[in-house]
């Protein structure tokens, strides 16, 4: 995944004829399976030997948002905090009507902004 991120940034930089990329701003949804720490780790390795070397990586995390097709509720994903489970587990149950909601936001991995030197 991080390799794809780096490739996409390099492609954009090439289109702009940039000499160097100085900053990359990512938005990563909390409902993706991407670990911020691991993305950073892989990023720093992958940018070596590219014009992205030394660039600043900003990662903005985005909360999960659900929408209920039954009652129209739209809001943050809820957690079921039953002590029997040891941990709060996120649920797609609509907090308003109890039916199944759909994920609206939180599944993205977007390159929001790239700063570069021409």
């Amino acid at each position, binding site marked *: 995944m991080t390799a*794809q991120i780096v490739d*996409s940034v390099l492609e954009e930089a090439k289109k702009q004829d*940039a000499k160097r990329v100085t900053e990359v701003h990512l938005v990563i949804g909390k409902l993706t399976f991407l670990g911020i720490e691991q993305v950073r780790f892989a990023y720093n390795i992958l940018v070596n030997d590219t014009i992205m070397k030394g660039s600043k990586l900003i990662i903005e995390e985005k909360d999960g948002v659900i929408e209920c097709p039954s009652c129209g509720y739209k809001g943050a994903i809820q957690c079921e905090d039953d002590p029997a*489970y040891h941990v709060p587990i*996120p649920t*797609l149950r609509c907090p308003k009507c109890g039916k199944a909601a759909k994920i609206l936001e939180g599944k993205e991995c977007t*390159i929001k902004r790239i700063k570069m030197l*021409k």
Partner: protein
Amino acid sequence: MANNKEVVKGEEVTLEIEPGTDILEVNKQLAQKNLKLMREHNVKAIDVMGSIGAGKTSLIEKLVQALKHKYRIAVFKGDLTTTIDADRIGRHGVKVVTINTGLECHLDANVVARAVERISLQDIDLLIIENVGNLICPAEFPLGTEKRVVVVSVTEGPYMVIKHPFTFMTADVTVINKKDLAEIMKVDAKQLEKQVKEIKPDMKVAVTNALTGEGIEELIEALEL
């Protein structure tokens, strides 16, 4: 490209662009394309995910046995390097395409599209895709199937469901397999079922023993086949 801001400082020109590229969107779009293509050919596709050793292949064998007289079936089998599972499924007289991913831990919509080129969609009604054994990465990559099944077995312990809520959120049907071993493993299948429904209230659940075929009818019903 939404905004381009150019700033000139001395000789240096800083350019700021907002590409807005969603890295996961590429796969999602390819998945949509797969889905459309299959619908055009009246093919129903099913993605089967689950950990290594959950019983995906055994379950598919039983599904194929139960459904091969009703549907013309093809199976895609994601596997790192071997064709062992493909040979197992192939014994039942259906077309099997192995997708060797090499090092990759999941299938994606692109490799599925490539595999589709190797079969004739006119000649099948049902396509079962067995994902690579892994309960995490495949969930991130929709393949363009009508239904997604996640298989967990009681031998994986009592916490598989609550540890992987986001995987279950992407599925339509959950199979709780190896029900015959529940008592020995001291795992309550009913509890797993409750947790799955907690995470996704509209989830359909089938409790099975893929070796004997117990619960396969429930699964077929859940898959609306």
